[in-house]
């Protein structure tokens, strides 16, 4: 089922929200281009019409769980409204004109988020920690960690306080 949040934001002229999505589009596109080892201009050059924009937006937003969910539920009109945003239209126009300078400019302005990538690599589980003083077992979150024991690397789990915990 599709949602109409983007349509509502547009209808209500909620420029702050709309530019929020513009920003995420730009910064995540930069990350993806970097991952693929191509210049941003080459990555964005695939956007020539609404269909190719849709595919690119889905890929770009897939870097963030929240945005990924958001884009999956976007209605057709929402995609069209996003496509009509100046930031996308400038790309489409630039692709028509093959204006490389535009992409260079965009590249300089876009910040890179390293945290997003780092966040994805961590693996979490439900965990338990037994308190020594009370003997009580409490639920915690266990993060997978690697420790070296007698020269061998082994998997261990730690909670947010850095204590060793059991995976439940």
């Amino acid at each position: 089922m599709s949602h109409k949040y983007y349509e509502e934001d547009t209808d209500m002229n909620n420029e702050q929200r709309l530019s929020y999505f513009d920003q995420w589009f730009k910064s995540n596109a930069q990350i993806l281009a970097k991952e693929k080892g191509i210049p941003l201009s080459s990555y964005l050059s695939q956007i020539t019409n609404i269909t190719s924009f849709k595919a690119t937006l889905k890929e770009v937003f897939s870097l963030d769980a929240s945005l990924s969910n958001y884009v999956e539920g976007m209605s057709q009109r929402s995609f069209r409204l996003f496509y009509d945003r100046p930031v996308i239209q400038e790309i489409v126009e630039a692709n028509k004109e093959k204006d490389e300078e535009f992409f260079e400019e965009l590249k300089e302005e876009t910040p890179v988020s390293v945290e997003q990538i780092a966040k994805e690599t961590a693996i979490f589980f439900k965990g338990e920690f037994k308190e020594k003083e009370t003997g009580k077992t409490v639920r915690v979150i266990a993060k997978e960690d690697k420790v070296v024991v007698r020269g061998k690397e082994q998997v261990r789990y730690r909670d947010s306080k850095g204590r060793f915990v059991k995976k439940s």
Partner: protein
Amino acid sequence: MESDYYSKVYIGHLIRECVEKREVALLGKNNANMRALKIKCLFDIDRILKVSGWKRNKQNLYRSVATLKEDIPFFTFNARKRSSETSVWFKNEYHKLIKKYDIFLDFDKSKEDSWEDLIKEVKSLKEYLDEYKVPYYLLFSGNKGFQIIIPGEYIKIEKIELGNIFPHKTIVENIKQMLNLKFLDLANNGVGSRLMKIPYSLISNGIEDEQEMNMALPLTDVQLQYFRVENMKVKNILSSTKLVRRGTLERFQDLSLEERKNNLQMFLNIFSFK
């Protein structure tokens, strides 16, 4: 009266209590949507149902996740002029007025998913909340999901950035990621103007008869344990559950405010990996 159900005084009081200092909105079919409404007394409920043509359109009732510093201004009910007034207010004023923001965990399933799987996942988070004695309440959302709400009074807003509320937005994202909650929907998570169903409101799902509609009902632990969607119809709830002064069924109300705040902080700390 627009509705037999909403004209019941005890239902009116339950709804009024849940929307204090919050935006109220009616959204539904026929484009008969109205936002930036307020309910301060029972008369307001009847009035907004009338002006929005609820009898015809059967919109769902929503409230903002945010609690505001002051009452929403009075906007015209003239449908042609209203949105031009409210859109300016949303754009320029709304975010400045946000005082508190609930931690809102919205669990939704698709048609293919089973209720059992969804309930299992909701319970897996609930176990944590119960263990840490976190103040929360649990709501059947009226259609295909549940909502867990931790009231905003227990956690301060640190910043509002590009219309998003922090740390609330990050908290929900962390909970989803670290507990691997498949059904926890992050769409519009943390957005300042986000809406959620009003407890005890009707969810029409295209049904005309009020008695056959579902209700967005705050659930007890037992109701979740033995949940059946058929039991959420108005006629079944009214015949089986005493609703007078029932409230949201917030857990751990017997603890002091300070204890409840501390418990929430302890719970949030388990997700705070450096």
